[in-house]
């Protein structure tokens, strides 16, 4: 009997495969393709206080083994998210964990959004604090690349809600362990990483950047080795659970993240190419466990085989 459920401290998931924020809409967009209940968790696109337009187009560019995006967190705002049929009312009917990714332009906005979600938390499993979006002028990565600001956001949100907190880290820092420890000390229950890596592409005919915002966040297979290294470093630095993501496309990719120390993983850009990627990854994890005679995820989480010198 293989058990792929995962305990993330304050909450449990039926399986360790979730969707990365921003790549799965608000869940409903993919409901035609497969039963959403099969996912370990749905992480919705970032929610802030008011409706937000996002960035001008073009917002994406395909690059070698990946893509750049600068969507700029277009979204309905927290009130519409809570009450419009396409968002939370729909998700409440889906029998799996729902994680709401939140962001703000100021520390206070993060707190207000968290408080509103806390007030109507039925159906919400946890919040993921986005301090790492590279595509907005204010907020986002500005909080995720400054130890003091990162701590302030997390401790502020911690005071605003009793919901379990996941903090999503930016790869755009020199020391992942420092940020992992800082957000742990500020009260996060779980760490997730990595967000996209700021990048750029230029059309040589028009000489224009391929993204209207000039820079965009790089995602996809191109960033997987960087993400894996950072997950390994974060898991080594703190004893709270780590959710790994960044370019995961296959079960083999996912298993590497578990071995590096992730307790759960998220699939992002791979969904754009194959909406069924999360399900194929769940199947592949089970096959690997059967082949290795592992009965639960703890049999291999963090068990990368490194010779002690």
């Amino acid at each position, binding site marked *: 009997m293989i058990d792929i459920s995962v305990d993330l401290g304050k909450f449990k998931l039926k399986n360790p495969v979730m969707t990365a924020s*921003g*790549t*799965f*809409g608000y869940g409903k*967009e*993919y409901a*035609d*393709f497969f039963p959403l209940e099969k996912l370990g968790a749905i992480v919705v*696109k970032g929610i802030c206080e008011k*409706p937000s*337009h*996002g960035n001008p*187009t*073009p*917002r*994406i560019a*395909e690059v*070698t*083994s*990946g*893509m750049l*995006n600068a*969507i700029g967190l*277009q979204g309905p705002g927290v009130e519409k998210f809570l009450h419009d049929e396409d968002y939370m009312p729909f998700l409440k009917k889906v029998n799996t964990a729902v994680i709401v990714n939140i962001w703000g332009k100021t520390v206070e906005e993060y707190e207000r959004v968290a408080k509103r979600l806390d007030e109507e938390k039925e159906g919400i499993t946890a919040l993921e604090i986005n301090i790492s979006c590279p595509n907005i002028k204010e907020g986002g990565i500005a909080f995720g690349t400054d130890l003091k600001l990162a701590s302030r956001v997390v401790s502020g949100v911690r005071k605003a809600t009793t919901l379990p907190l996941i903090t999503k880290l930016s790869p755009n820092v020199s020391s992942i362990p420092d940020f992992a420890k800082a957000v742990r000390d500020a009260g996060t229950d779980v760490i997730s990483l990595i967000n996209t890596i700021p990048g750029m592409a230029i059309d040589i005919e028009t000489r224009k950047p391929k993204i209207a915002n000039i820079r965009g966040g790089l995602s*996809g*297979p191109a960033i997987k080795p960087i993400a894996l290294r950072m997950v390994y470093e974060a898991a080594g630095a703190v004893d709270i659970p780590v959710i790994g993501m960044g370019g995961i496309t296959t079960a083999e990719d996912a298993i590497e993240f578990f071995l590096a120390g992730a307790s759960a993983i998220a699939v992002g*850009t*791979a*969904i*754009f*190419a*194959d*909406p*069924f990627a999360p399900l194929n990854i769940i199947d592949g994890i089970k096959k690997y466990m059967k082949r290795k005679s592992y009965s639960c995820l703890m049999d291999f989480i963090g068990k990368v085989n490194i010779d002690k010198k």
Partner: protein
Amino acid sequence: MPIQEQGKIIRNAELQDSYRKLELYAPGICAETKAGQFVHMQISGLRDRILRRPFSISDVNKDGVLTIIYKVVGAGTEVLSTQEEGSTCSLLGPLGTPFSLPGKDEIPVIVAGGYGAAATYLLAKRAESKGVMLLGARSEKDLILTKEFSDIPFELRTATEDGSTGDKCLVTDLLETIIREKSAKKLRFYGCGPHGMLMAMGKILIENGLDGELSLDHLMCCGVGACFACVVKVKADNEDGWRYARTCKEGPVFNASSIYYE
């Protein structure tokens, strides 16, 4: 409802000049397809490229054959042009908001620029009343499906920018002429083509107190409304008077009156 289906290539041949016609056996998608929808294709053998490519569905038949007209413009379509009969590619579809078919008492007027014509063929075929096809392009070699539209039969009027065939004017000039000619008739307008042409068409319709359905083309990523990459400005009841709508989900077909013109 959209599905994922392995489309088997039956034919992949030159249509004319750099335009090609791809026929795929995809009965599941064909059965669901409405005029104006698209498929999101994973092109097999495209190295180091991870995203799907959207293609308008030009035609479907009861034998499960889905037709796409494409032009070789980049790495994706270059590789697609080398795919041989019998090979397969993953399709998601049918996707997007379709055209609404004209009523029996309405004359459909389709305005198409370049290979935008491809996205309107099924609409013309399924329209109960036969109408007028205004087809424009840079040059004669870019006018596609002329025989097919004439055979439906649609009254075909053509315009080229270089005057190599048809009237030497823009296709939107033909639109203004037909609005004047047939002002007494009940017309229903549809458009597909380059963005500039569609914006000009939308403005002409609105100036004449008319509406129509425009199929917009935009750089897409997920194709199902999840990523918010392919947005266009539409009118909205908010401070700014507009919001970004997803071309793949809320479109590609938008009412001309709903678009926010800048």
